[in-house]
């Protein structure tokens, strides 16, 4: 069986946030939505300060809290370990969002055209675009994927539904790895099949000690971290990402 997962090497991460940009470009995520989010942390006081960075995609948990609470089954587990949202079925109750301990879910508060990084009040720009919509829109997001044939990629970011990191399901189906992993300049994010002993992710986990975030909540995530320790109560966020739309 395939079980997709990530192994994130914190030793290598420079906190450049290129993965966040890659995710935005690939998935056309709305303003203030960060399916991939890089925490910038600091710990202790001078002269013992330590600064470190932690990318946070969706954990694609095996025992996902969001899947358990979804009243309509819009959030579901795929055979290959992906935790996906069917934006055609989601009713926008946001139960997944309050159930998720990692805070990876984003609700679309506005209509897509008001929610994108584009000045829709600029008449000249809008005329230039014509009927093509966003100049950077990714057409693959609107298609259905997988054996279930469900609408699980980013979609058009329609109003009133919840979305989150998809592990770039539309790229996986075309034998590409997720955009964040592909775009990382220092090879921090390793993506692959955790059930295949010869995959790079399995090898890395065999070589080095690893942890997963909030293991005591019992979610059994598929994202592993190596080369660091989990954030603790002394960890402070610096250059914090907090944007309201």
């Amino acid at each position, binding site marked *: 069986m395939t079980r997709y997962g990530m192994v994130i090497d914190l030793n290598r991460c420079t906190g450049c946030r290129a993965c966040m940009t890659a995710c935005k470009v690939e998935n056309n995520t709305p303003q203030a939505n960060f399916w991939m989010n890089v925490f910038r942390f600091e710990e202790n006081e001078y002269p013992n300060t330590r600064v470190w960075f932690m990318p946070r995609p969706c954990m694609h948990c095996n025992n996902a809290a969001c899947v358990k609470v979804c*009243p309509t089954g819009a959030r579901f587990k795929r055979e290959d370990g992906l935790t996906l949202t069917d934006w055609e079925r989601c009713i926008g109750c946001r139960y997944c969002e*309050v159930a998720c301990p990692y805070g990876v879910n984003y609700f679309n508060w506005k209509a897509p055209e008001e929610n994108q990084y584009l000045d829709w009040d600029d008449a000249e720009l809008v005329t230039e675009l014509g009927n093509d919509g966003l100049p950077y829109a990714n057409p693959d997001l609107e298609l259905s994927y997988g054996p279930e044939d469900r609408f699980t990629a980013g979609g058009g970011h329609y109003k*009133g539904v919840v979305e989150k990191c998809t592990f770039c399901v539309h790229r996986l189906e075309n034998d590409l790895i997720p955009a964040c992993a592909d775009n990382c300049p220092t090879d921090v994010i390793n993506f692959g099949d955790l059930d295949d002993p010869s995959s790079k992710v399995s090898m890395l986990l065999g070589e080095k000690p690893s942890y997963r975030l909030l293991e005591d909540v019992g979610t059994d995530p598929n994202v592993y971290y190596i080369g660091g320790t989990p954030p603790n109560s002394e960890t402070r966020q610096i250059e914090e990402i907090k944007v*309201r739309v």
Partner: protein
Amino acid sequence: MTTQNETLPYEVGRLTRGWIAMVAVLLILMGVGGYAYYLQFTQGEIVTGLRNLGTMGGATWGLYIVFLVYFIGLSFTGISIAAMIRLLGLEKIKPIARMAETMTVIALILGAMTIMVDVGQPLRAMVNLFRYARPGSPFFGTFTLVIAGYLFASQIYLYLDGRRDAAILAKKPGRFQRFFRLWAAGYKGTPAEKKRHNQASFWMAIAIVPLLITAHSTLGFVFGLQAGRPGWFSALQAPEFVALAGVSGFGLLICIAAIIRKVLNAEEKLNQDVFEWLGNFLMFLIVAYLYFMVVEWLTATYSSGGAEASVSNALFTGEYAWMYWLTVATLLIPFGLLVYQFIFKRYRLAWIVASGFMVNIAAVVKRYLIVVPSQTHGTLLPYGIGSYSPTWVEYAVVLGIFAFGTLMFVLFIKIFPIMNIPENSEGGE
């Protein structure tokens, strides 16, 4: 108003000037709420104060969920009073049975409406919640057990309870005669019929008491089962919801009964005895809830750290402290008043009504404290503190829903007697 209708009891069919003014005010409030919801429906929930957890630093469940829990909590009274009359033979509280059942039915309808205004895709929700229903979701119980099952059961009770009175009123000519005849559905009041009626409601009362506990617990499980939300994840959540449902439900019933007593000049029927009983019962429910609060407070503060401490600090000393201590005060003051009256047997109607009103403030604020702080202060990853303040749209929508419920209640009062017709009344048995 015709002379015929004047013979109907409890001002059924009589439209007074005050009543019309009240309906006008309610319609205006509903209009404002409707406009606010129109804005939300067309522009998206950006017009509310709700935002995403985590990097957006907000609360994604807010005032709507607070009032969903509040409305469903109110439904506690109808069934419990009906069951107590049948099972414990508490004949003296019979005059409040019908208003309690009416309140229950309306409160459940309002609860269902609150869910629909909260979800982002309400039209889709009406289909998908049934088409793709998943029993694994704690929400499933809210729709099936609470809204559907409970609403159905309360309506049956309201119907059965009203049949005798409908049969009496159907004998009088008037505008509503056909309606009463329909309700009575051939009921004549023969001894055999009465016996069957009593038996049916007795067995229904027995079946419904477990539903009472399960339904309110189910709503508690919506929060209590979430291991990822400090402040929610607790085995106490379910029993606490049952207790607070009782507190708010009986509190509001006292207020409604007092208003009806005043408006219909029903001092004799809704006498001091009824209010004494209601007050004493409310007192025991408050004791149960205060006990849960103390247990919860000790568990949260004694040894915890991390996100759990962040939530409890925000509650007891931080941002939400004024609300928390307001809840404590609005529970302790009624408790003091009711205990004093209970011990010295010196009952004062005004005190009982004030207690009923105050515990409802406590119930709304406490629900806010259950829903919101765990989202703004309870993130397990170090996202930082979030914030939430409802916008006018949320207030207007909630007020509109309230007005709709009140309107249904005052309309019902005008088409059906809100209290049972006395045994010896004309045309009766």
